[in-house]
């Protein structure tokens, strides 16, 4: 979206204590501890990029190949580091290219501050070149947004932006800055972080009486069951959560975004919830007597048919966002608040127990799932490889220490089901929005956010082609990202649905791929394609041991399905194993 700005610019003569709006933006970033910006320049944001020229030793700028890649990288950065992701884009198409990422960050509660350039304030509403009403376009997909037309607003609006993005239930914030405000010099009084906005309560007040009621329910429960989501990770409450489940002895299952909050091999970790989750957690949701939901929002992919969801159970819901309580599932006891604070209070009041018999029930279901599904997926006898066996070998190499970034589709479900995780902030995926094309740029961002960790992007042959241009970003930044393409020569998840629910009428799911090895090589990235099982283990080792980025394409069975599956419109207890 680069444009030449030939217009004569009205810049007030710089006074001694004055700075430009652009500089104030960057000063704000430094005060907020920002170290990396993902962005793409263009006409309306050129003054900020000009100021950035003098800040290159303090602020790293990653030039992406498309603004969507920029914002997904920002998301990956935020998710792996726990910090706020920062993104730059210019006005018009630059800003509209952020929309998918904003929607994704909004529904997955990812803290972002996006700064977009805007045309001169006097041109607003005149259909000026690259003018788009970005504030109104992004209103439904931002936690907060604001248009700045006067540089004097920049310090405190940016302070508000960072505060809003990271506090409470995090989310994306977009600040649109008109070009005149970027150029304008003003009396800079320094930067003050925002700690309070009177109309905004990031954390609801914790009510002891609710916690007492919740503890009472938990203590009297015979078959309690914990569902946990990303709230644990966002609240940095992994230890508090572990203490809670270990004291109560309650089995715990995770949502797609809750994955990695609890180590995969923890004895009380009974697996994944939802449409392609594990057998036991789904079936037993409809058998438990007390359901304890922590930092999750009862997404329809988790609950299946709502009117047949856990109707027998009393529900305790811990969440920081009051709007989530009762939104989808009627709560018996709501525990509002940050789970980092509420969980220890609850842990104190619950009696130590071991629900051995109840936990065994999960194991019985697990055994059945192992026999019918998992064993064949991980140790196939077919000639064609399965996605599951690729993940199994990946696990053997990473030992669960890598950050796994997944895209959307079959590979995402298989990777989530089988990948091993030892530590939090290790699973990065597009959950609520289901954005294909997320993984490649998010993996780049994740590596910048956690440079010491191995980052493996697992992507399908459909998703990788949506944002494949970001190979250019990898090339230029020389960042070390492992790209594992699981190629089934289909848009697999849609094909699976067409097979199961549309009489195998495969409508436009047959997708061709380029020669990924050649594409990667063209970008200077080492690559390999694997078509048979006996090459697989070596290839994965080579990928992980390679210095720098590496692309590995693995050809897997064309018409393999992901099971178990809760068909749409069915109850979680009607989960199918085949």
């Amino acid at each position, binding site marked *: 979206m680069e444009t030449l700005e030939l217009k004569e610019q009205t810049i007030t003569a710089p006074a001694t204590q004055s700075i430009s709006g652009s500089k104030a933006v960057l000063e704000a970033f430094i005060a907020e501890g920002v170290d990396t910006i993902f962005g793409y320049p263009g006409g309306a944001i050129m003054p900020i990029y000009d100021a950035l020229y003098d800040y290159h030793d303090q602020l790293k700028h990653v030039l992406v190949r498309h603004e969507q890649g920029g914002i997904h990288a920002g998301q990956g950065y935020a998710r792996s580091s726990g910090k706020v992701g920062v993104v730059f884009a210019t006005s018009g198409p630059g800003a509209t290219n952020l929309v998918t990422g904003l929607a994704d960050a909004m529904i997955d509660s990812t803290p972002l501050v996006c700064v977009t350039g805007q045309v001169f304030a006097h041109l607003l509403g005149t259909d000026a070149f690259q003018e788009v009403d970005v*504030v*109104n376009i992004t*209103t*439904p997909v931002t*936690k*907060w*947004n*604001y*248009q700045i037309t006067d540089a004097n607003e920049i310090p405190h609006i940016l302070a508000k932006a960072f505060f*809003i993005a990271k506090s409470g239930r995090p989310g994306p914030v977009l600040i649109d800055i008109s070009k005149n405000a970027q150029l304008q010099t003003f009396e800079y009084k320094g930067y003050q972080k925002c*700690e*309070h*906005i*009177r*109309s*905004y*309560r990031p954390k*609801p*007040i914790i*009510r002891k*009486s*609710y916690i007492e*009621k919740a503890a*009472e*329910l938990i203590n009297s429960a015979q078959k309690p069951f914990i569902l946990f989501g990303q709230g644990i990770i966002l609240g940095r409450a992994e230890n508090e959560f572990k203490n809670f489940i270990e004291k109560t002895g309650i089995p715990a299952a995770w949502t797609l975004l809750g994955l990695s909050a609890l180590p995969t091999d923890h004895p009380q970790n009974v697996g994944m919830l939802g449409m392609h989750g594990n057998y036991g957690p789904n079936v037993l949701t409809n058998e438990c007597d007390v359901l304890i939901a922590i930092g999750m929002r009862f997404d329809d992919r988790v609950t299946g048919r709502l009117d047949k969801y856990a109707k027998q159970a*009393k529900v305790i819901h811990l969440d920081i*966002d*009051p*709007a989530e309580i*009762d*939104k989808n599932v009627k709560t*018996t*006891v*709501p525990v*509002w608040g940050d789970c980092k604070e509420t969980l220890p209070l609850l842990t104190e009041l619950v009696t130590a127990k071991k629900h051995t018999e109840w936990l065994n029930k999960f194991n019985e279901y697990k055994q059945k799932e192992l026999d019918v599904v998992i064993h064949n997926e991980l140790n196939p006898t077919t000639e064609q490889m399965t996605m599951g066996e690729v993940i199994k070998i990946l696990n053997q190499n990473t030992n669960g220490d890598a950050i796994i970034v997944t895209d959307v589709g079959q590979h995402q479900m298989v990777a989530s089901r089988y990948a091993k995780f030892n530590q939090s902030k290790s699973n990065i995926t597009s959950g609520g929005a289901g954005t294909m094309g997320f993984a490649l740029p998010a993996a780049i961002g994740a590596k910048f956010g956690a440079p010491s960790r191995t980052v493996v992007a697992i992507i399908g042959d459909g998703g990788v082609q949506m944002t494949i241009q970001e190979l250019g970003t990898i090339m230029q930044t020389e960042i070390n990202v492992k790209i594992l393409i699981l190629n089934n020569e289909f848009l697999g998840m849609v094909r699976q649905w067409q097979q199961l629910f549309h009489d195998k009428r495969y409508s436009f799911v047959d997708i061709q791929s380029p020669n990924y090895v050649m594409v990667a090589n063209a970008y200077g990235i080492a690559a390999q394609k694997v078509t048979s099982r006996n090459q697989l283990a070596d290839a994965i080792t080579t990928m992980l041991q390679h210095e720098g980025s590496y692309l590995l394409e693995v050809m897997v069975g064309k018409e393999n399905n992901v099971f178990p599956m809760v068909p749409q419109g069915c109850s979680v207890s009607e989960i199918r194993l085949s």
Partner: protein
Amino acid sequence: MKQEYTITVYTENQVGLLNRIAIIFSRRKINIESLNTSPSEAEGIHRFTIVINETEDVVRKLCRQIEKQVEVLKAYYNTNEEIIWQELALYKVPTDVITEKVKVERLLREFGARAVVIRKDYTIFETTGHREETEGLINALAPYDLIEFVRSARVAIIKASNGFHEKLKEFEAYEPAEELAENAFLNNQAEVFSM
């Protein structure tokens, strides 16, 4: 059961907030019957009055979504029994017709109307009241060449409310008092905790 609810929202006065609130309804394909913005009793605080026809469950969820917006301080919802409300209507009719055919005096008395402007060519009446009342005058004037009619959005006062001054102080405090987060669970604890 769907019924008329009046939602009262206390907000900061900020560009774009109307859109942020309006799309909470339109996203769920809920029609807004009437929407009014005005200053409130507290300085610098704006007040939205929104009327919709919905079930209580939906209205409660809408209020939570509205309250979640950064610049919203508080959203209340009330049934018609819990509020005092008025709408204002203006009617333009040809002066000669009404002086000839209608007894103006009777109109004014019967509908509590007020003549705002009387000119040779037209007269403008104003009336305030509930929907039925303002509609009553339309029906009465319709046969007499009603030229123009307009009705304002509903404005409403919550009977049980003590205003926003005290609340605002709590909002401004860093650590708010407990009362701020008043909610269904607190008010109806006995019913909620039916264990």
